[in-house]
């Protein structure tokens, strides 16, 4: 699906530009976007390094148990396949707490860390696991209590009461998150026999061993 979407977007854009006689805009956009992608990744380095540093401290000291106390029941229900004290569970809980508090730039490093930990439990390194899909589902639905960016934007554009959309946002977020979790569960159910019972060939087995250490 991602392949189709990716190729489709590029092909449509080029054909569209060609038909409209605007082909000269394509190449500059191409390089400008590529440059923007690299600069995003580079600016992520600083945020990622800082938050993962802090997370290591939070993890090692045991402070994590204080932070994530209330989210635990939800996370255990969402990710039945992950051992409760696995590092993946900790990172996912941190990601969820950061999202709830509207700390988007802190949520991403924890999310990526969680994916790395989930990958260690994956027997097919190029394919997403059920738990990865669930984790992505709650992240794309943006489970949040305080939409910080929008409130800031409303304040900047002179709203009388910038925070008055928080209530409607929480209701809408609750809807999108419920749909995400529900549709994920349905997909999970209908895929429950797929991708299972696969006999790993020798090469894949070796790779899995290497990844799992």
């Amino acid at each position, binding site marked *: *699906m991602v392949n189709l979407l*990716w190729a489709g*977007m*590029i092909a*449509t854009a*080029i054909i*569209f*530009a060609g038909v409209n006689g605007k082909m000269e805009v*394509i190449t500059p*956009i191409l390089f*400008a*976007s*590529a440059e923007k992608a690299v600069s*995003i*990744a580079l600016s*992520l*380095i600083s945020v*990622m390094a*800082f938050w*993962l*540093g*802090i997370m*290591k*401290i939070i993890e*090692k*000291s*045991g402070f994590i148990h204080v932070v994530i106390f209330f989210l635990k029941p939800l996370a255990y229900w969402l990710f039945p396949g992950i051992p409760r004290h696995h590092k993946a569970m900790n990172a996912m809980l941190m990601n969820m707490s950061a999202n709830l508090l*509207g700390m988007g730039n802190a949520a991403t490093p924890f*999310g*990526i*860390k969680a994916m*790395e930990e989930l990958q260690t439990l994956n027997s097919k*390194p190029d*394919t*997403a696991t059920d738990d*990865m*899909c669930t*984790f*992505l589902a709650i992240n*794309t*639905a*943006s489970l949040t209590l305080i*939409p910080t*960016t929008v409130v800031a*934007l*409303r304040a900047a*554009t002179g*709203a009388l*009461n910038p*925070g*008055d959309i928080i209530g*409607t*946002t929480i209701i*809408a977020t609750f*809807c*999108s998150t419920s749909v995400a979790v529900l*549709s*994920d569960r349905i*997909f999970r159910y209908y*895929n429950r026999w797929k991708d299972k019972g696969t006999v790993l060939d020798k090469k894949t087995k070796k790779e899995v061993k290497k990844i799992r250490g």
Partner: protein
Amino acid sequence: MSPFSILNIISIWVVPCLILLALIYAYFRGVKVFETFVEGAKEGFGMSVRLIPFLVGMMVAIGLFRDSGAMELITNMLTPLIRLIGIPAEVLPLAFMRPVSGSSALAITAEIMNTFGVDSLLGRMAATMQGSTDTTLFVLTVYFGAVGIKKTRYALAVGLLADLAGILAAVFVCNMFFA
């Protein structure tokens, strides 16, 4: 004190306080805080660099699609259909851009606020949409890209369904509360 100013104070205080508490707690539990910090920070570097190819691929596709005018054409074509469901045509570009590009979506939201008024129904609807959904494509690219997952199975479908639900809910709830 209005709810907003309380919220504002919370959002300013929560991050510094979390860091402070975490450091104090860790220090008195005998954790070597600086060494531990550096150890964690090292991982952040590698993760970010590994993302570059995935981000380049995705952002080029999004940039081309948006700036060639193809996005606008599709939006215009779908307008009559969308009106039937009750989504105002003015917020349609935002609904389409939201899953694709976070910064463009935010720009559209700002534009809607400026054109129709930040406290108008459309302005609030745009704000609610912006706040209640996330940039599905970006999240997918970054999270799966970080660990080299190529077969994403049904994750994109779930993300887009969630966005659709969020957008419809935003329209409905705002019509109820603000109209």
